[in-house]
Each structure stands twice: as structure tokens, then as C-alpha cells.
């Protein structure tokens, strides 16, 4: 059945057909017809953000916390260019989002019209795919295809650029049900390769699962299967920043996060293992440290839906291209059918080694009765929110690493952080998206004051929609991670890394009609956190913490996993000139 309607109406109709309940956006000249259609209906809720970057991050937060694609709507020119950071963020972290951009009318494209930008050209390298729709007849099928591309295979952001005359013109609407796409990435892994991996697992003495965001992106079934596999084999498991929650932090095989600021036992296990099974991670440089000294004695297997991830950075012995859930199901079936064999004696010795590393207690820190240590603040936040229906977003920097280290995640989709791109300003708008998706949940953005200021205009959004997000700001009046690197690498010359002229965060919140809390005494911390949790509306929590705390443990850049800095040891000169050029 075909229906005639305007392009603007098609946009709204297609979003409805795709099951979209909420979109994040900001109007402008080139999207007015679409906004008119939004005005005329009540099925899709539009959330007015205060900056287009925030619309995209909010869509990301929505997507990461639900597993469904997030949608943003922005105008042409500056609207589209402001979306670029969010698109790149979503591309790096493989988050399915659909960004609709307005464009000047087709007959004005190329004339340097008002608010014209080459959106397709600009966003080509920061999207999985993008489309300029020049005919209204093709608009609805393009939107359906965009949802398909964004959510199939390795997920990612897509852009649909819609000229204003295409929105006004009338065309035929194509139903979603009739949409057929050529784009069908492979889901099932190669059975021969899976067999090879099973045989490796049967004989491994020091195996480790190294899992990433791919497990979460694959869906809840993948996390279930991962848990079954880990618990059935008894192999230790570590995860990247992106993969936290796929295996529960309370699980007995959990080693904690790995990587540059990962746990000592996780990194040492990666270095000394004899079989590394990478599931949905991508050997990012935050994980590998020095490539030529990365896990030198192990055989490596890599399960990834993206063929280009395999052998990109680290050469592996077995590459399995497929969706994590499908591959894990097949892997489990084969392993079980062959008698659930593992080298129990080898494994027992391996766990003994790991137990020794755990004794180091790498997350210990010197607490203080006078100033709030940031680690302590996150620990208390964990203790006081444990067991609640809790979602955490973060900004980027030291606080992000402390949140990853000291918060425990029992389930997937509960942890939203900018991993690949490292976007300061991500967490606040992301928390908006998460709260929209989970209205009754406790949504906390663990932030640093500098990151948080980058998108603080979203206080307006939060106030308007009464979103009870909690902004938990670890305020050290510094760009903490920059300061740490300047201390380690640049002779303690703290160039531009302090936060001068900070606002009074309580008054800032109050100016938007939002509750503000300030806390600087460790003795008051628990009460203040409880006050934040119990307040029914949004809260800006200004937690004044120790200003010069460094984030440990740390693999200095250019060093292998087994050369971690554990803490307050003398850190001068640990990073050589070769390491210093790395980021």
C-alpha cells in the first residue's frame, strides 16, 4: 500500500514505524516543516536540547542504555556541524544513532546559501553511512535503510540530510514492512575457526577472556552467553572500559577492567596468559600499551563482527567474524558437545598466580580525614547506590577512570562513557538521554568540573523536562588528567590545566531552579550523597576533592602491561621520550 504525503510528514511517519518514542533536537530554518509535523502529533516526544552536540550525545545515552537506536534532529549548517563531535563519538564507540539534518533546498545547494554546509561531505568520515535525499519519493525508504544500517553489523551513526523543498514536496510513502536491504553483514562465525578456538580452550593453561563493547552491542543474549561460558569454563575475565557490565563485577571470575588505568591483576593476566580470547573488543591502544611487548607468550583469538578489526593492530591466531551472541552460542555448543574439557590443573595454578597479583590491592589509596579523596567519593557513591536501579554516565578524564575502577556494574547497558573519542562534555547530555529512556531510574553523571562545563547549558533541558539526573562533579579545580600527564611527562609545568574562574555550582544550579549541593568535608559526604539520591529532581553536586590526586594504577605510555605504576612511587622519568609522543 502506498500513501501520498509530504516529506516532512514522511519523516515523522517513518520514525513512528521504526518504533521511535523520543527524539532529541533543536529547530532551525531548514527543518521547520518537520517541526511543524512534530507539533501536530503526540506519539513521538521531542526533547529540546540547548546545543546540537548535546542532542547527539543524548541520543547516544538513550541508545547505549536501551540497545535501541537513538535519534536526533538538527537544522542545516551550524546545526549539522555542531553534531559532528557526537557523530564521531558514536562512530568510535559503535553506537547506533540516526541524525536527521535539514539542508537548504535542492536548487540552492552549492550556492553558499544561508546556513548551507556540505553536511554529507563533512560527516562522511564520521558516520557509518550518510544520505542526501533529493527526491521525496525516496525519503521514507532512505530512513528505513538508515535504521537498518545503523543497527546492523557493527552499529554506528548515520546521517540523513533532507533539503527543505524535499520536506515540503509530496511523495509516496513506503512502509517499513516492505523494506529490503542489500546490507546484510554476516552474523554466524566460521565453524572451523570456532572449532580451532574450542581446541585451544581445551588445552590452555593460562587462558583469559578479554571482552569489550561488542558484547554489549550484541544485546542481552550475548551477556547471558558470556556469563554462562565464563562460569562453565572457569576462565578469568577482564573487560575494556566499553564492556563493563557484560560480566557482573560480583562474578567470581571477574578480574576488573584492564588497560592503561586497569587493574594490576587484569593487566598482568593479559601479559602472562597463554590463550587470549578477545570477544568484541578491538585491541585499542589504551588496552595494548606497547604493541611489541603485548602479551608475548599467548595465542590469541578474536571474535568481532567487523572483519577490519581482526589483525588491525594485533595479529591473532584465530579470527572469527560474527556477532558475539551467535559465535558464543556456537562456541558453547561445540565445547559442551566435546565434553566440557579444560585443563583443570593448569587453570588452578593460573588462579593461584592471579591471587598473588590480587594481593597487591592495586586500587588502595591513602584516604584523608581532611579532604575528600576522589576515589573515596566514588567508593561512597558505589556503596550508597548499590542495588538500586542505577545508570552511570561519565565525562572524560581522571573521574572517568575512578568511576570505572570503583563502581561495580552487574548488568550491561548501565554504564555510558565516551571510550574511543574521549569526548569531554559527553556525560551530562548522555545522562539526559538515559533518564528519558528510564524515567524512574537513578541516573548519575560522574563528572569532572572542566568536562561538565563543556555542556552545562543542558541544565536548561534538565530543568524544562524535570529530569532527575544527578550531576556528581568531582571538582579538583584542575584538568586532572592533563595535570597528571604534565606532572609525569612535562616537568610539572602545569600549562593551562587549572580551572580558573569556576562558577559557584550551587548558585549556577539554583539559577536554573535546580537543587545544588556542595560538599568538602569527608565527614559530610555520605549525608550529602544521600541528600542527592533522595531529592526527587535534578541535582548538581559539587564535590570538592583533593586537587593533586593522580589516577593509579597506570601503564605509562610506551610501556608493556607488566610495567605498571602502582601509586605514589616516584614517577619521575618513567616515561621515555618514545612514550612521550604517544597520547
Amino acid at each position, binding site marked *: 500500500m502506498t500513501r501520498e504525503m509530504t516529506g516532512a510528514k514522511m519523516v515523522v511517519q517513518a520514525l513512528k514505524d521504526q518504533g521511535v518514542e523520543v527524539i532529541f533536537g533543536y529547530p532551525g530554518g531548514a527543518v521547520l516543516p518537520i517541526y511543524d509535523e512534530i507539533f501536530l502529533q503526540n506519539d513521538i516526544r521531542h526533547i529540546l536540547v540547548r546545543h546540537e552536540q548535546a542532542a547527539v550525545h543524548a541520543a547516544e545515552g538513550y541508545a547505549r542504555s536501551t540497545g535501541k537506536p537513538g535519534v536526533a534532529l538538527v537544522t542545516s549548517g551550524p546545526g549539522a556541524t555542531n553534531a559532528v563531535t557526537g557523530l564521531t563519538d558514536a562512530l568510535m564507540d559503535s553506537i547506533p544513532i540516526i541524525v536527521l539534518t535539514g539542508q537548504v533546498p535542492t536548487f540552492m545547494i552549492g550556492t553558499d546559501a544561508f546556513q548551507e554546509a556540505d553536511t*554529507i*561531505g563533512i560527516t*562522511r*568520515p564520521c558516520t*557509518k*553511512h550518510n544520505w*542526501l535525499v533529493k527526491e521525496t519519493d525516496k525519503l521514507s525508504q532512505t530512513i528505513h535503510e538508515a535504521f537498518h*544500517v545503523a543497527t546492523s*553489523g*557493527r552499529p554506528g551513526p548515520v546521517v540523513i540530510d533532507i533539503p527543505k523543498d524535499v520536506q515540503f514536496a509530496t511523495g509516496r510513502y513506503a512502509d517499513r514492512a516492505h523494506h529490503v536491504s*542489500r*546490507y546484510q553483514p554476516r552474523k554466524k562465525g*566460521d565453524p*572451523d*575457526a570456532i*572449532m*580451532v578456538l574450542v*581446541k585451544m580452550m581445551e588445552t590452555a593453561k593460562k587462558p583469559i577472556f578479554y571482552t569489550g563493547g561488542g558484547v554489549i552491542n550484541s544485546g542481552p543474549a550475548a551477556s547471558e552467553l558470556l556469563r554462562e561460558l565464563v562460569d562453565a569454563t572457569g576462565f578469568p575475565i577482564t573487560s575494556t572500559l566499553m564492556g563493563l557490565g557484560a560480566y557482573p563485577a560480583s562474578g567470581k571470575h571477574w578480574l576488573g577492567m584492564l588497560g592503561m588505568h586497569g587493574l594490576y591483576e587484569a593487566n598482568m593476566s593479559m601479559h602472562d596468559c597463554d590463550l587470549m580470547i578477545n570477544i568484541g573488543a578491538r585491541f585499542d591502544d589504551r588496552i595494548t600499551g606497547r604493541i611489541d611487548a603485548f602479551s608475548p607468550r599467548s595465542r590469541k583469538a578474536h571474535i568481532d563482527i*567487523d*572483519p*577490519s578489526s*581482526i*589483525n*588491525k593492530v594485533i*595479529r*591473532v*591466531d*584465530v*579470527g572469527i*567474524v560474527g556477532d558475539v551472541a551467535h559465535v558464543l552460542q556456537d562456541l558453547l555448543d561445540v565445547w559442551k558437545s566435546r565434553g566440557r574439557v579444560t585443563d583443570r590443573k593448569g587453570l588452578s595454578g593460573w588462579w593461584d598466580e592471579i591471587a598473588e597479583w590480587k594481593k597487591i590491592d592495586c586500587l588502595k589509596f591513602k584516604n584523608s580525614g581532611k579532604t575528600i579523596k576522589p576515589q573515596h567519593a566514588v567508593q561512597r557513591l558505589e556503596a550508597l547506590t548499590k542495588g538500586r536501579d542505577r545508570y552511570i554516565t561519565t565525562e572524560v578524564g581522571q573521574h572517568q577512570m575512578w568511576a570505572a575502577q570503583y563502581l561495580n556494574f552487574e548488568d550491561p547497558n548501565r554504564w555510558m562513557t565516551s571510550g574511543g573519542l574521549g569526548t569531554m562534555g559527553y556525560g551530562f547530555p548522555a545522562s539526559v538521554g538515559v533518564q528519558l529512556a528510564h524515567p524512574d531510574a537513578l541516573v548519575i553523571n560522574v563528572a569532572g568540573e572542566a568536562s561538565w562545563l563543556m555542556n552545562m547549558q543542558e541544565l536548561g533541558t534538565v530543568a524544562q523536562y524535570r529530569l532527575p539526573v544527578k550531576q556528581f562533579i568531582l571538582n579538583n579545580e584542575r584538568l586532572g588528567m592533563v595535570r597528571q600527564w604534565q606532572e609525569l611527562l612535562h616537568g610539572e609545568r602545569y600549562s593551562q590545566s587549572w580551572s580558573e574562574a569556576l562558577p559557584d555550582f550551587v548558585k549556577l544550579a539554583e539559577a536554573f531552579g535546580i537543587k545544588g549541593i556542595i560538599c568538602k568535608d569527608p565527614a559530610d559526604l555520605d549525608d550529602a550523597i544521600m541528600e542527592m539520591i533522595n531529592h526527587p529532581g535534578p541535582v548538581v553536586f559539587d564535590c570538592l576533592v583533593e586537587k593533586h590526586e593522580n589516577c593509579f594504577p597506570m601503564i605509562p605510555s610506551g610501556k608493556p602491561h607488566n610495567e605498571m605504576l602502582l601509586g605514589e612511587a616516584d614517577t619521575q622519568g618513567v616515561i621515555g621520550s618514545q612514550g612521550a609522543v604517544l597520547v
Partner: protein
Amino acid sequence: MSALNIKKGSTSHSAYNLRDTHSDKIERHTLAVVVENEPGVLARVIGLFSGRGYNIESLTVAEIDHEGHRSRITIVTSGTPHVIDQIEAQLGRIVPVHEVHDLTAAGSAVERELALFKVGGKGDARVEALRLADIFRANVVDSTLESFVFEITGTSDKIDAFAELMRPLGLIDVARTGVAALSRGAYK
């Protein structure tokens, strides 16, 4: 080959991947990329090469199937075997890319390039240019009293060689199409 004897660095069992991907030797490969003929698809392919720092030595593109909206991009690139594998995988994940064939890895391919040479001159040089063109089986497609335009097809090496010979004889301008290539045999 038994399943367990997978060579280090291989991603499948095909003979295709049996070459040593650990080599640091720079290889020249010809890739055939069949794409959906839609606006911007060439920019996507080129953007991939510039964005990820890969080389393009030659690139040709034209529609090959009007009904099916297919174009074929032939790219000559160079890199270590590891880089070549990455290029192939990265090309493969561009949404409007239908097929990627590494014609060099698949065995010998037929490669041809077409070039036009404008050579000016009088007297002996002009006669010599015409004589050499004949040896190279180049056709004269335009002539004035003071110039020729030669059309030549062949491998890139042959065209390079012809260019070297024409240079001292009064070479004015060159236009080359870049490489078009097909695998040998009865399959793709």
C-alpha cells in the same frame, strides 16, 4: 590443511591467506572494488585511503552496469601485506561497496592502461617519434605539421617506457587513464 595448522595472522583457511602477512616488504597490489553507483561513493573510497594513510598509485572508475547501478573502481596501491589486508577489509565495510577483489593476491591479472601523448617537433625528431610509436603499437589519433597525438594501451610499465622515449623528442603533454584490470580465467 588441518584446522589447527592455521598460519599465524590468517583469518580463514583459504589459500588466499597463506602468504606471509608478517612481511615488512612493500608490495604493489591491484584492487577491484565494485560499488553501488551512487553520489559520493568515490569520495568514500578515496576518503578511506587519505584518512587512514594508505597509498593510491592509480585509480580508475567508471560505470560497468547501468541497469544494476554498478561501478568498478580499480585501485593500484602499495603497502606491507598487513596493510593490504587492512585496506581490503576497510573497503569491504563501506556500505555501498559490493565486492572487493585483490587481483594481485588472487594470482596474475590482466592489467591495461590507456594513454594519450602529445609530441611536438619537426624533422628527424618527428620521424623518430613516429617510428618509435610504431614499435610500441601506438596509434596516431591527431596530427598537425608540428605535432602528433599518440594513443597507446598497455601495462603501466610499457607506458612509462614510451614516455621516457618521447620526452627528449618533444613531449608536450600526457594523459593517462590509470589501470583497468581483470583476473584471468573463467571466474571473478
